[in-house]
Structure formats: structure tokens, C-alpha cells
């Protein structure tokens, strides 16, 4: 009786949307699982014998080194910026996020070019007598590129955690006689663990999904393998199998982390006394900020200058009418997809508040899945899915337009938009959930008790309270979408070029200098958004709710 009542109560807009979203994410998974049960092809056996081990080793090496270095740089930069005071600190605190505006593949093309025999760096080195060139198109080179363009994920998470970390812990440690060194390693660092792990995990997932960099550098990792099996060896089922292996690796990593964490928690509600920044003394006054500027130089300014140089050479014949369409295409696609992603993520976040249940937890895990599935796999599954839908809805289309072709959704932006939502749902969701966590349930519950419906409360109470979190989520998702490459390449409607696809095309046709112009546009848009993200006014609703 009660169960029936509970069930009825729980059917609302949030739950319906969440469940549908969950199902739509599972469908690609099912496609993949089904493949595992069909017999292995000869190609698969060939891959197993000659290539698989290399793929696994290279992938683990790549993400291992990328994780370690990006975590270190992210931690170092966040620590220096939050704990010390020095000239230019405030500027650096948001500049350090900027490398995120540079898509990894653009950094890859640019550095490869600069370090090629005829590139700027090599010529400079030769000018000072160093004849030996540096070949960046290798696995270590890829590590460098990923670390430089992705460390900001770790930086942002750790910075946020450090800013919130209460002085109580470190002061207590000091009182108990711990030296600064010991205090850092036994108290500060462990308490940063959730932030470090979350940031590094994001970096690792982005690395695993990348195709542009590894294809260009010929680094044989899984994303490369999947495209290779699909395109070179012509075996889509082998490609799907490889995706399955990749996902197992991803889940193993996530699982391992959870297991190692055990019963420990990393937060406790303590009086939030912020830690005061200390001024730098002695050599550190130059060394520490200097190292931050050095990181910015390599991660952002150097590629940017190279791109500006090339843009100056080629802008005259790249900037034509069709270029404007390019920008419009990129923007409209990203805006629409972002809007949908945030909307659905909001529904799911709302659904997930209140009493927990196994179902809710399961749904959550499914939502986060989209991010772990490689773009190539999502693409295949989405195409198949949409063709089925198109065939099913064909009669409906004929109602609108008797002359219509059969493939309507498939030839439209819907497919790509859908794929984006699927893939970036996780990011949008996590940001929104974090924002909700900060606010708590009290206000929402108060609104319900005052007879407001769920939707009305959402619009009039919840949204204003999490406004800044919502904006942050939207910006991060937008930047990710506008930079995205593999899905865009495969799923865009014919003749629909975006900035990202144009950059890729120019690079592939070895017209690197022409690619500078669309690259710069991409980076400019993302930079502007990051600026907005980091300069959001801190005023707004202050939440002084004592959590019991």
C-alpha cells in the first residue's frame, strides 16, 4: 500500500526525464555488450596476437605519466596560489586555468610544428649551436601535451578545496607539534585527496578519449586502436571489442580508487576559518611565481604566439564568408547542446536529492558512464540508434513533408547534439550536484511545505540559489563541446563544419598555418568564457545554515 503511494509520488518531471536519460545512455552500452557475445573475428585474433599488448602497455604508460605529472603540477600551482601572497597572484590565479581553452590537438599540432626541423624552436636551437632536434611526436611528447592542456582540471579542484580547507586542522597539527613538512604530508595532502582524485580522474578520462593528439603523434593507445580497427582493418566489431576493453580499464581505475579510499571521509563540519596567505621571502619571491609563469609560458603563451604568427601569414585567404558560417555553426551547436545538457543534468540532480535509494544511486552511475565511453563508441551506437528512430518516425515525417527523405534526424544536428548530451552529462551533473550540496535541502523543503510544486520551487527557489554553480557548469560544458573532435567529425551533418572540424581538416591536409585562424577563434571563445567563469561576482545568496 505504502509502496504504491511512494511510487505514485515519485513520478514527476524530474524522475521521468532522469529515467529516460538513463535509458538512452545505456543503449550504447548494450550495443557494445552484445558484440562481446558474438564470435571473435580473425581480425580480432590478429589484434590480440600482435597489437593488444602494445595498446595496453602504451595506454597505461600514457595515463600513468599524465596522471602523475598533471596531479603534481595542478597541486603545486594551486598550493602556491592559495597559500602565498605575491605580486601578480590574483592574475595568475585565473590565468592558470587558461590552458584549458587550448584543445589538446591544437597544442599537439602547434608544438609538433614548432619542433619540426623547419619549426621555430628547432631553428632557434640550431642558431645557438644545438644541432640535435627534439621529436615530440612520441609517447613522452603526448604526455607533455596532455599535461600542459589538462592540468587545469586538477588545479581548479585542488584550489577550491584548499580555499575551503579550514585552518582548524593545520593549527591543531601545529599545536600537536607537527612541523610544517609533516603537517603538509599527513594533514593537508590527505585532506586534498578527493579533489586531487576527482581532478586527475577527469584528466585521465579526457586523455583516454582523445583521438587528435595520439593519431597525429602515432601513439598506439586504445583510442587510436579503436579508430584503427574500424578504419584500417575495416572491422567494426573488433573496434567495439577494443572499446569494451577500454571501458573495463576505466572502471577498474574508478573501482580501485574507491576501494583504496575505504571508510575514510575527508570532510568534517568544522568552523570555516580560512587559512591566511603568507608573503614569500627570500629566493622564493622569484622562484615560486617564476615557476608558475614558466608553466603558463609553455602551456599557453608559446603555442599562442606561434598561432598568431601563422594567422598573420594566412588570415587574408582564410577569413572569408564561409568562415563566418563556421563560427555561427560552432556557436549555435554548442549553445543548443549545452542548454540541453544542463537542463537534463538539472532534472537528474533534482531527482537525486532527498532520500537516497539504490535506484537513484544506480541512475547516477549510469549518468557518469557517458563520460567514460570513448567518443568513437558513442558515435557508432548513436548512428545506429538514430537510423532506427528515423525509420520508426518516417510516417510522421511524411505528414509534415510528403517529399521528405527517410533520414531526417540522422542527417540533422540532432544526432550530434544527442551524442554531446550523452557524453558531457556527467560534467554538468557533477557541477550542479556540488552546488546543490552547498545549499542543502532546507530551502527546498521549506518551499514544498509552503505548497509550491516541484517545478515552481525549482524555478523560484532552487535555481536562484545555485545560479553561480549552474553558470559554471554551463561554461565548462560549453567549452568542452566547442573543442570536441571525434564525435563532431563522425556525426556532423554533411556540410556542417565547425571550428574544430576545420582545424582538424587543415592539419590533416598539412595546412597547419591555415589552421591557425580557426584555432585562435576557438581559443578566444574559450578564453573569454573562462574569464567570465573566474570573475563571477561572489555576491549573491549567502548561505548560513548550520548543518546538523
Amino acid at each position, binding site marked *: 500500500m505504502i509502496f504504491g503511494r511512494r511510487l505514485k509520488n515519485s513520478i514527476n518531471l524530474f524522475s521521468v526525464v532522469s529515467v529516460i536519460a538513463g535509458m538512452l545512455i545505456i543503449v550504447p552500452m548494450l550495443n557494445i555488450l552484445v558484440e562481446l557475445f558474438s564470435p571473435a573475428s580473425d581480425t580480432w585474433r590478429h589484434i590480440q596476437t600482435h597489437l593488444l599488448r602494445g595498446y595496453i602497455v602504451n595506454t597505461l604508460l600514457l595515463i600513468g605519466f599524465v596522471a602523475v605529472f598533471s596531479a603534481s603540477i595542478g597541486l603545486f600551482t594551486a598550493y602556491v596560489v592559495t597559500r602565498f601572497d605575491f605580486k601578480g597572484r590574483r592574475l595568475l590565479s585565473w590565468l592558470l586555468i587558461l590552458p584549458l581553452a587550448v584543445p589538446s590537438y591544437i597544442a599537439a599540432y602547434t608544438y609538433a610544428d614548432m619542433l619540426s626541423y623547419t619549426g621555430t624552436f628547432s631553428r632557434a636551437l640550431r642558431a645557438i649551436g644545438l644541432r640535435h632536434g627534439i621529436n615530440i611526436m612520441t609517447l613522452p611528447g603526448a604526455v607533455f601535451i596532455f599535461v600542459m592542456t589538462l592540468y587545469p582540471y586538477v588545479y581548479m579542484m585542488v584550489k577550491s578545496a584548499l580555499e575551503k580547507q579550514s585552518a582548524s*586542522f593545520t593549527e591543531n597539527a601545529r*599545536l600537536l*607539534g*607537527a612541523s610544517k613538512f609533516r603537517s603538509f604530508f599527513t594533514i593537508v595532502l590527505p585532506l586534498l585527496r578527493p579533489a586531487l582524485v576527482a581532478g586527475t580522474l577527469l584528466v585521465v578520462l579526457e586523455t583516454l578519449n582523445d583521438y587528435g593528439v595520439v593519431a597525429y603523434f602515432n601513439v598506439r593507445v586504445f583510442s587510436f586502436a579503436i579508430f584503427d580497427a574500424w578504419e584500417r582493418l575495416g572491422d567494426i566489431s573488433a573496434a567495439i571489442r577494443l572499446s569494451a576493453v577500454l571501458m573495463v580499464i576505466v572502471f577498474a581505475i574508478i573501482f580501485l580508487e574507491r576501494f583504496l579510499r575505504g571508510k575514510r571521509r575527508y570532510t*568534517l563540519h568544522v568552523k570555516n576559518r580560512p587559512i591566511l596567505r603568507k608573503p614569500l621571502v627570500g629566493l622564493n619571491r622569484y622562484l615560486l611565481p617564476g615557476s608558475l609563469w614558466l608553466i603558463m609560458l609553455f602551456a599557453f603563451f608559446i603555442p599562442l604566439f606561434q598561432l598568431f604568427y601563422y594567422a598573420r601569414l594566412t588570415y587574408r585567404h582564410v577569413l572569408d564568408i564561409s568562415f563566418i558560417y563556421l563560427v555561427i555553426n560552432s556557436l549555435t551547436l554548442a549553445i543548443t547542446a549545452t542548454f540541453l545538457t544542463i537542463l537534463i543534468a538539472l532534472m537528474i540532480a533534482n531527482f537525486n536529492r532527498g532520500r537516497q535509494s539504490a535506484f537513484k544511486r544506480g541512475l547516477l552511475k549510469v549518468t557518469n558512464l557517458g563520460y567514460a565511453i570513448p567518443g568513437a563508441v558513442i558515435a557508432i551506437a548513436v548512428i545506429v540508434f538514430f537510423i532506427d528512430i528515423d525509420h520508426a518516425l518516417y510516417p510522421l515525417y511524411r505528414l509534415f513533408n510528403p517529399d521528405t527523405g527517410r533520414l531526417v534526424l540522422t542527417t540533422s544536428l540532432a544526432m550530434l547534439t544527442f551524442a554531446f548530451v550523452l557524453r558531457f552529462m556527467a560534467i554538468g551533473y557533477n557541477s550542479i550536484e556540488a552546488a546543490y550540496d552547498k545549499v542543502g535541502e532546507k530551502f527546498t523543503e521549506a518551499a514544498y511545505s509552503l505548497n509550491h510544486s516541484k517545478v515552481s520551487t525549482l524555478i523560484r527557489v532552487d535555481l536562484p540559489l545555485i545560479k553561480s554553480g549552474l553558470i559554471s557548469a554551463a561554461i565548462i560544458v560549453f567549452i568542452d563541446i566547442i573543442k570536441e573532435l571525434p564525435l563532431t567529425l563522425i556525426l556532423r551533418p554533411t556540410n556542417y563544419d565547425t571550428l574544430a572540424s576545420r582545424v582538424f581538416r587543415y592539419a590533416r591536409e598539412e595546412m597547419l598555418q591555415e589552421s591557425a585562424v580557426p584555432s585562435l577563434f576557438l581559443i578566444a571563445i574559450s578564453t573569454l568564457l573562462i574569464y567570465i567563469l573566474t570573475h563571477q561576482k561572489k555576491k549573491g545568496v549567502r548561505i548560513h545554515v548550520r548543518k546538523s
Partner: protein
Amino acid sequence: MYVKVENLDFKYTSDEEVLYDITFTMNEGEVVAILGSSGSGKSTLLRLLSGLEIPNQGSIVIDEKTLCSAEHFVECERRSVGMVFQDYALFPHMTVAKNIAFGLKGITKEAKSNRVDEMLKLVNMEEKKHVYPHELSGGQQQRIALARALAPSPSILLLDEPFSNLDADLKLKIRQELRLIMKTTQMTAIFVTHDYDDAAEIADRIVYLENGHIVHEEVPKKH
């Protein structure tokens, strides 16, 4: 005199809490309560004693060691001052045992373990040895915080509003327990509070602080 505080002055530019010419003394084993409303400077006084802040002038001597003077300042890491914060601040990622053992240095593992057990027995929490802080109630957390502060045998114990986070029933119980523990360990202690009853119940002497000045001292009548 075990504790000698002379002419302590404190003014921090962005802070409202200021202290003017604070002077007082304590005997070993004495428990003193600093009574004052919020903003009177009582928390600041504790922070000065612990070494978390530096005074503009004045001196602090405890157990014949000069902790702070015109020419000398001992870092709080080396002061051997135990402190229990208002929010306890137990390290959330460590078990109770590890929390308590944190301040123990220079002794064998076995000795550490013994000391931890000793402290747990003192605060009556032996069965919670391997539990994490988030699994404890407020009152339990406070006891562990106390145990942690006492474990390294500090020369003085400071407590910042030890009862403000507890509800009424618990308060009475904890007050008595605290007094018992203080007397058992013969700990010299200073605690800060805004509640007269708390002060009267536990302290041997009450010092009244108002707007940064010591305005009054008295020996409370005990029941």
C-alpha cells in the same frame, strides 16, 4: 608562578578583537576560566598563549620557559601547549587512535599505543579506538579532542568554548567529567567561555574579560 603573563597587547589590523595590557598569573594545577562576551578578546588570548598569534608587546612564561617576550618568540609547534578547539577539528581521515597518537613523538610504537589506550581510558572511550570521527556524536568528538590534546602531556591545556556545541543535558555531564579529568591529571588549564555556570562549576578562579581588558577576578563559590 607556573604561568606568568605580563602586559600582553594585541591589535590586528583587520580584526576587531584587541587586547590591552593583559597581566595575570597561575599556579600549577590550577584551572582558570576566562569569562567574557563575544568580541571581548578571550579567543584571541588563547591564540596568543598557544602561539598561533604574535602579540604586539608583552611576555608569556610557562613552567619557567619564556614562550614569548620582546626578544624571543617560540613557535607554537614547540610550545608544548595543548588546545581543544571549539569545533574539535579531529582529523577526519584518521581513526580515533591515530588522532590521539598524532602529537606523540620520539617514543616507541609500543609506548605510543600504551599512551593512546591510557587516554582512551581517561575519557571513557576505549571501545571507539578504531572508529572514524564522522561516526562519533558531538560529545564523543569532544572527548577525543581532549584526549588528543592531553596525550603529549602538554604543560598547559587551553580549551576554547568547550561547551558551546553541546545540548543542555550533555553539558552538565561533560562539565563534571571535565573537572574530574583536570583534577586527575593535575593539568594546568585555561578555558574560555561566555557562560558563568560553566566557569563556576569547573574553574578554581574566574577572570573577567571585557573589551580587551581584564576587569575582575574572583574565586567562584562551589556547591
